[in-house]
């Protein structure tokens, strides 16, 4: 029973964070919202007893991506002309896409979805390790290449760019 409470609590935090990201005009609030969301995702992973990915989420996202976003914002605020006005707007097609997709998903995938009580299995670490370096070895290595490419690309795009 407490599992359900936890689940819905996590869901609440995630939603609040997501809503903030989508709607706020203040950049710091945006970052905080994003952070809340990312943490709640880690919480979800834990709820499903996948500890490894939970930790990975915290390290990569909260520790890495979020900090990156923060730095980027600080640079943007410094380099940009005038006061940045973050804003969102209401767009009917966008809203209809969202709502439509939502309905579609819960209509089709929803009924097949897992019940909350079905959760309880322990995702084992040894099995994960064997998967990563066994069946998914090529994918693992490819990811390494991807990360390398990303590194190079980021340097190329943002390094030594001409200032106005």
């Amino acid at each position, binding site marked *: 029973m407490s599992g359900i409470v936890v689940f819905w609590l996590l869901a609440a935090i995630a939603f609040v964070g997501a809503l903030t990201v989508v709607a706020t005009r203040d950049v710091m609030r945006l970052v905080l919202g994003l952070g809340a969301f990312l943490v709640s995702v880690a919480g979800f992973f834990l709820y499903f007893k996948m500890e490894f990915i939970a930790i990975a989420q915290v390290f990569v996202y909260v520790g890495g991506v979020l900090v990156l976003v923060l730095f980027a914002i600080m640079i943007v605020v410094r380099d940009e002309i005038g006061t940045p006005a973050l804003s969102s707007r209401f767009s009917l097609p*966008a809203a209809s*896409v969202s709502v439509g997709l939502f309905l579609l998903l819960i209509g089709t995938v929803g009924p097949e979805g897992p019940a909350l009580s079905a959760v309880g299995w322990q995702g084992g670490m040894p099995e994960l390790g064997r998967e990563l370096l066994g069946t998914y070895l090529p994918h693992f290595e490819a990811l390494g290449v991807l990360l390398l490419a990303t590194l190079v690309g980021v340097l190329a795009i943002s390094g030594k760019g001409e200032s106005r």
Partner: protein
Amino acid sequence: MALLVDYGWLAIAVPLGLALIVAVLGSRAVPVTRFLAMLGPIFALAVGGVGLAEILGAGAREGEAAMLARGAFVWIAAGGRSIWLGWQLDGLAAVMLVVVGLVALMVMVFSGGYMHGERGLARYYAVLSLFTAAMAALVLADGFIPAFIGWEVMGACSYLLIGFWFDKPSASAAAMKAFLVTRVGDAGLLLGIGLLWAQGHWAGQIPLSFAGLGASVAGASGLAAVAALLVLAGAVGKSAQFPLHIWLPDAMEGPTPVSALIHAATMVAAGVFLVVRAWPLFAAAPVARETALALGTITALGAAFAALAQSDLKKVLAYSTISQLGFMFAALGAGSPEAAMFHLVTHAAFKSLLFLGAGSVIHGTGTQDMREMGALAKRMPVTTVTWIVGSAALAGIPPLAGFFSKDAVIHAVFVAQPLAGAALFLASMLTAFYITRATVLAFFGEPRAQHAHEALSMTGPLVVLAIPAAVAGFFGVQILTAFGAEAEPLNLMVATTASALALVGVAAAIAIYRRGPAADEAVAGALGSTWSLLGAAFHLDSIERTAFAGSTVAVSKGVYEALDRRVIDGAVEGVGNGISGLGRWMAKLQNGDAQWYSALVGAGVIAALAVALWAGR
């Protein structure tokens, strides 16, 4: 000789071919053109003359219609029904060919002098030839179809000739008016033909032929009545009877020889002729006869009144023609087509004579207004003498031709309807009065004209026409025999009454008008506003113009505004505007915003997915 009769249809083909040749030759060789054109009526005259000779020579008995030659062929065959074209040369056709040929020939000879130096003479002679061909076609027709063809072509020629001086706006307007007013009648005629075609019993004979007309409506008196009335409508239009008479006075805008041929002797007589040909129809339809009688009498009397107050010489003759045609229609209505035809023949002679005489006067003095003429007798003797012959014939003075034919007409009408007969007596007296008025004003009294001369080219035809005007009455028996009708002896009571009235009319006119045109004012003073009413022919022209032309124009303006401008233009422009508006709205979709585009694409995808999923269920 007999060949001429056997190939009688050449009386149509020859003038037609000559018309084309003349049209092609152009105005360069006018004398040649004139000569060629004259061959047409000469040919028609020959055919008619030979035909008449054959009929009379072969001793045809009174009361029997003689048929000399005929021929027919299928023109259009469609869906089990065929339309035939054919011709027939019988006594009636032969007499008409003689009349048409003679008058047309005289008109062409006269035109040599009258139209000398005019522009467009090739067109003139070509159309005159074409007209001769068309009239021959009508006269030789064996059924309604060939008759209608000739009828319509004559109408077109009339239009072309009235508007000969086309750069004169009044002439063009008059030509249009003539065409349109007769069109009203022609519409009725066409409906009548169609009705007969559809409802008549034509089994075993050529459809719409005159010979089979009687059998086609046997036992269907309603059909006969309606068809007869419709045919009568066409005749009323062509022969300028009330209420479709308004075009004839205006038609005087055309050259006077044209008026002599078309609007005195031939085309206007076509209406009477057609009724005579279609007589089996009228014999079976008393209502049509009564209508003809009523219209004819009204026209005869009304036009005679109008002729009293005209100062234009040609207008007097125009109203006189209308009036005399009314006499003929009254005779038809009284059940005597023979009397009507007799009067038609004599009228052709003396009315064309009078018109050509007027032409000579107009050419010699340069004016048409009788108030500017006077004492022409001294300076234009031949014209004067022939004019007097024509006038006396018109007035019905014995022993000239008009006396005999008018007697036949009035007698027949009086027997059928005494009231109408009395009206015709009155009209005869008025006829004598108005024509004497014209004679006195133009040829006698004090000279008011600057100059006057006559020319041989014009006086020649006058003399030639004066002969039948004078003596045709004595050949009444022969003429009627040719028609296949019985010649009745002169009715002494009618004859004496009519002659007496005529002499009274003549005497009164001489007495009043010997003073000259000043007498008009005295008469006007005595009659008051009636005089101007007469001069304007009871304002019928303006009344009909407002009622029919005016209302049509108003209706079409209304329809244009309501339908064409608002509905149709509105729809068309509305479609255009609508599409532009749609375009403008759709342009807003392209605003350069990548997120907007993506959203739209996404919306489309979701919708498609939803449809696919739901359909798959």
